[in-house]
């Protein structure tokens, strides 16, 4: 059997489009605060639950994406989700990575200058 891949549930908030993550029945703004689903069945069940929040006009477009653990930190597997969780890599002053944001549970690893 394949090793289960941990997943995170995300969506965009309807009113302002901001990227949000699922945590214990609510939506949080920081990836670092997101709930990690170790079991696929839990992730799938929560995605079904999120449909109620779509109906309640809280969020749009909920979906799951894979994450991995790296030295105690949780990171998205795909570049797309890393960019989404931080903000544009070409504008470090904008998006969730912006310095004005409050510190989060896990600090995002510094990605340095890209490439």
């Amino acid at each position, binding site marked *: 059997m394949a090793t289960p891949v941990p997943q995170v549930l995300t969506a965009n908030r309807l*009113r*302002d*489009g901001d*990227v949000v993550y699922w945590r214990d029945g609510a939506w949080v703004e920081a990836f670092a605060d997101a709930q990690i689903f170790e079991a696929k069945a839990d992730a799938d069940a929560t995605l079904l639950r999120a449909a109620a929040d779509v109906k309640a006009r809280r969020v749009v*477009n909920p979906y799951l994406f894979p994450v991995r653990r790296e030295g105690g930190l949780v990171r998205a597997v795909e*570049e*797309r989700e890393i*960019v989404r969780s931080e903000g544009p890599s070409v504008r470090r002053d904008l998006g969730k990575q912006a310095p004005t944001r409050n510190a989060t549970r896990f600090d995002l690893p510094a990605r340095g200058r890209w*490439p």
Partner: protein
Amino acid sequence: MYRYDEFDAAFVRERVAQFRYQVERRLSGELTEDEFKPLRLMNGLYLQLHAYMLRIAVPYGTLSARQLRMLAHIARKYDKGYGHFTTRQNIQFNWIKLVDVPDVLSDLADVEMHCLQTSGNCIRNVTADHFAGAAADEIEDPRTLAEIVRQWSTLHPEFTYLPRKFKIAVGGSVHDRTALKFHDVGIEIVKNDTGETGYRVLAGGGMGRTPYVGHVVGDFVAREDILAFLEAVMRVYNQSGRRDNIYKARIKILVNALGPEEMRKQVMREFEEIKRAGTLDLPEAERKRIAAYFAPPDFEALPVLCEEFEAARLRDGAFRDWARSNLALHRQSGYAIATISLKPIGGVPGDASDAQLDGLADLMDEFGLTEVRVSHEQNLVLPHVRKKDLPAIFARLAALGLATPNAGLVTDIIACPGLDYCDLANARAIPIAQRISERFADLDRQHEIGELKIKISGCINACGHHHAGHIGILGVDKKGVEFYQLQLGGSGAEDASIGDILGPAFAVSEIVDKVEEVIGVYLERREGHERFLDTVRRIGIAPFKERVYAAH
């Protein structure tokens, strides 16, 4: 400039009110996202990677100082202090909140702007030569026809639900600055043997995953017949264009499936029918009425040689550098066309801050400049500048960070928003442009290389026009990692061609070196003053391929 008549103003206001109500109904739950999505797209509102993105139409790329100030205001009040000029002469804001959009649209309507035809399967905002009305080689200002096409297309009931989006460009000069051969329909203003002005119409061009150069479907369409002819093209497309497969739904697929000859035949058949009905003639008086909106400013009679300009060139090296690459020949003596590069070394191509937009508006007012243009190459253009004003204008632009002297050079790179902003992207495009621009920052080296158009797309949809780049770069995703494919020999100009793929893609850490190696081969192999593109066409891609894959 075109000014709204009562109908235009009322129509745009109505659309704002409609969308305000649609947003209310979405927020109250009367509309589901599935129901709302096509409505928001009809108003240019996308949901992107980080937030909603609002795409504002800049018809035929023309803006007034007043409109620039409104864009600056929107950037400040509703966004994060900047906007992004696109490869279709539009401007996008990346951080707009859904709840604010009705107010943004209302603010835009105050300055005769809107977001119509910037999304969805409709005839999109018509683009035109950014040197319109100023270029020395122009036959006729293409914006008159662009506006006529806009009026014909905006509410056309037949074309509200096309198989796919439909892009039209109009060029009025011998030299094509609109990439018209890569449009669904490209219209070239031409003169026939008897000196009459008419239109050569191409159809079936496009980029994306299946790039094609357009085919001529009308060699010389008379002025009064142009709407009938366009309607004929649209009818053939609307009837036979594929609706079963989104990737095969553009007119380019139809034209190439039928073959250009058959396409011409079908278009002519429809055209004859429309002509027989006689309902779609474009009256010359109406054409002239609209042309009057685009009348050039009252030019002063000035000598070709301008002493102030020449003195500044001798005195000031920075001005000399800027004048060398950023000025183009104007039809009127004593005037010049000035390109404002939005490609600062290491910057984000096409981005402009609220302060820059405001500063530019002030400069325009001060020097009596009524218009600024947006180019599809993501730069701005001051179309009618007195040469004697250029030194002062240059100083003002420099203070605004808008005087990068690189128009048309290797650092004047087109890049789509890519994975930094776009929901569809597979890879980043902007940072590649930034790193290449930094690598080639030295201006002497840029001039040594000469005209070279690098165009970068972050996915196969090709918003960064990579197929038409002298050097095209396409970002691809290989198992979650960004890679970059090189294409050589594309052109979006009158000598349009699709670049040839060099071979397997390169890693992020390699791509800038590989671009440098490609340029190295050119510098070794070029003959005389040959452009990069001409060297590639003469020697083919093999020598380049050999160099860049030598160590692989």
